[in-house]
């Protein structure tokens, strides 16, 4: 039998990293930059948080001494710093130096995944610690704390309250970004920058500043997805390549949701569900079928891509200036 009560929270847990990633990428793309470095940035966000937590945990005489405030804050800030720096590299290359966005993004992903796996694999050796593996159980306890009352409210608690604070942060950020884009002057200006930088420039908007801010903010948001993944979903255990292709899925989600972070809240849960649905579908003895079920999120994305290109509805198209470097003197 299909157990929705068990399935839904897992789908959400799978969906949260995707939601962070897609919100970050949406913000970036709205400024006219297709950041294919998001998968790398999410790795860096994850590992930076791990490094921060690792250093803090190892500096503690005993696990009981952990300061609840610091143990949350240190990984959070180091994650944000790491992904911010990645965003800065991308911004500098593509905005100031007007480099090709696809090539820069791919290089950033190569670098970021390498960075994550390198420190994931070498952190212990580099710091000369005497622990067998990176298992940040103490940090993870704080990061995966459910909301209070989650266990007392039956199915309601299971479905809506059983997640850690970062999950709610993800939803909040998605809503805020969505609000900013739709309802504020800053959002209006940002959209104008992404659609038609020359027009925005002529209207007195500082195009490059908007692009920098959107791209770096986007990177930080995406990086949090990596942090959520290791600290909550993976219970503080870093294993190389475990994060997998979630970064690419997050980029696909941006198209799937037609650049709407609020829609992405539901879509990422849907994708999270599709990502693990193979665990819930009957396969009988045929284990290989599971592998075919794993195709679902990608096939669904492809279908959306095809259908939206056939329909050509103007609201659902990417920002007009996406991928094109802006140089005022080109006019």
């Amino acid at each position, binding site marked *: 039998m299909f157990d929705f009560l068990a399935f839904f929270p897992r789908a959400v847990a799978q969906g949260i990293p995707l939601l962070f990633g897609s919100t970050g990428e949406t913000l970036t793309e709205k400024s006219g930059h297709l950041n294919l470095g998001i998968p790398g940035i999410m790795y860096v966000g994850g590992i930076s948080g791990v490094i921060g937590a690792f250093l803090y945990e190892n500096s503690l005489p005993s696990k009981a001494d952990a300061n609840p405030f610091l143990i949350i804050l240190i990984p959070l800030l180091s994650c944000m710093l790491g992904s911010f720096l990645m965003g800065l590299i991308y911004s500098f290359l593509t905005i100031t130096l007007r480099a090709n966005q696809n090539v820069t993004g791919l290089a950033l992903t190569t670098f970021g995944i390498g960075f994550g796996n390198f420190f994931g694999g070498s952190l212990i050796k580099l710091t000369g610690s005497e622990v067998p593996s990176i298992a940040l159980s103490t940090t993870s306890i704080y990061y995966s704390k459910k909301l209070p009352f989650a266990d007392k409210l039956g199915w309601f608690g299971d479905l809506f309250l059983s997640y850690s604070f970062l999950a709610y942060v993800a939803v909040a950020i998605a809503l805020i970004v969505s609000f900013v884009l739709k309802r*504020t*002057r800053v959002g*209006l200006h940002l959209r104008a920058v992404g*659609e038609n930088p020359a*027009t925005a420039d002529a*209207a007195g908007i500082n195009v490059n500043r908007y692009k920098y801010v959107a791209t770096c903010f986007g990177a930080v948001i995406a990086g949090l997805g990596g942090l959520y993944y290791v600290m909550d979903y993976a219970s503080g255990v870093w294993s190389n390549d475990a994060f997998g292709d979630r970064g690419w899925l997050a980029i696909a989600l941006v198209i799937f949701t037609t650049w709407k972070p609020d829609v992405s809240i539901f879509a990422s849960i849907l994708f999270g569900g599709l990502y693990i649905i193979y665990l819930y579908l009957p396969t009988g003895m045929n284990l290989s079928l599971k592998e075919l079920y794993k195709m679902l999120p990608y096939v669904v994305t492809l279908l959306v891509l095809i259908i939206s290109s056939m329909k050509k509805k*103007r609201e659902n198209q990417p920002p007009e200036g996406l991928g094109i470097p802006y140089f005022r003197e080109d006019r």
Partner: protein
Amino acid sequence: MRSEKPLVEMRHITKTFGSIVANSDANLDIYSGEILAILGENGSGKTTLMNMLAGIYFPDSGHIFINGEEAVIASPKDAFSYGIGMIHQHFKLVNVLSAAENIALGLKDEGRFNIKKTVEKIKELCDRYGFELDPYEKIYNMSVSQKQTVEIIKALYRGADILILDEPTAVLTPQETGKLFNVLRNMKNEGKAVVIITHKMNEVEELSDRVVVLRKGKDVGSKFTKDTNAEEMSSMLVGHPVNLEIDHPVPEDPRPRIIVNHLTVRNMEGLLKLDNVSFTINSGEILGVAGISGNGQKELLEAIAGLQPTEEGSIRYIDDDGSEQELIGKDPLEIQNLGVSLSFVPEDRLGMGLVGSMDITNNMMLRSYRNGRSMFLDETKPRDLAGNVVDELEVKTPSLETPVRNLSGGNVQKVLVGREISSAPTVLLTAYAVRGLDINSSYMIYDLINKQKKQGVAVVYVGEDLDVLIELSDRILVLCDGKVSGILRGGEADKRRIGLMMTKLGGGTADE
């Protein structure tokens, strides 16, 4: 109504771009409560002059006074602060945003952002001046005329007292033009200064209070519209005839080569660009096409070349043996496969006629690379051709391997024309073949075209310099608003009459 003193005075304005002089010592006064028309041919510097008021360009020398005080206008922002708003031909709007959002763009009103406040203010403006606009409509759903309305409101919203419109009617239907004129009159009555850049005589007569004519970057006259007439204005516009001493051989045995009948073309926006156009192109003759640019010349050539979908009419090609082929509905390759040797020098040299990143040799074979059955390119012939073109047309290039985009405009054109005439065409279509070229290169192009004519090629020469058109062409087709305004005999055609026909339909009677 009209203010006593001029609101804006432009004095001794000079602006150059590299070696090209756009304005020299130009003067202009603008009064509030008056509609001023600025009349001039292409390249007469009217847009450049106004762009200096709008903060797009900064004058090399000269002074601008606003309300009697000297003003420095270094950016569009400065222009706004002086109350100057300009509506350019290419609208600066973001397609996926609504009208109101576009109007609010870049403004820093106090308080929280609220599009409703903007919408209310827009509605006020609409009521005051008689615009029709839904502020919530997205730009991409709008017609060109609605987009123009958005641009005008954008300027008014920012408090413009001086409104400059660059050829506002070029993209409008007659009905839309009528509405626009009413709005502009309302603005004048409210005490605003309105400037329209135009080349259409009937608009000057219908709308303006005063007209200033620009020629070769300089103002050559200012008249109250009621004190002048079309003949006087067009002679100011075109100036005195100049003898250029371009060779003009007598056509030998001209025979109909292409017969165009009732050709009608609409552009992507559904605007009528060619309206029931009929004419004949003869072999061994040069048919000049005169007209202010944007009056259907581009569509005419592209329709013949198989690049422009047509609505009605026929384009028949007549071979030497008298057999006929219909060209409409065929793409360039199909036309070539019919055995029709048709060459086309398009207006957009690097975007259409040539591939900018490729070298001269590779560009030489754009049209001919398919020849032969081999799956490989034959580069020897194109290379020889490239060498010949470079030698004969004196193309200045470091080598044959230089990408053509790195050549100067004149040399790019020589490469393009050289290739197009190398295929021994029976029809040669050229669009603005000498635009941006220096004198020597221009004369070389005229010679090449004359040579083609002597070899019996049917040449269509779309040009902007009337003196050249008169001396070069055997017949001149004058287009106005997509219609044939008349066909004149070249050689001795009256320049002023052409000027009149270009700006006013049927401004003269045709010879044929």
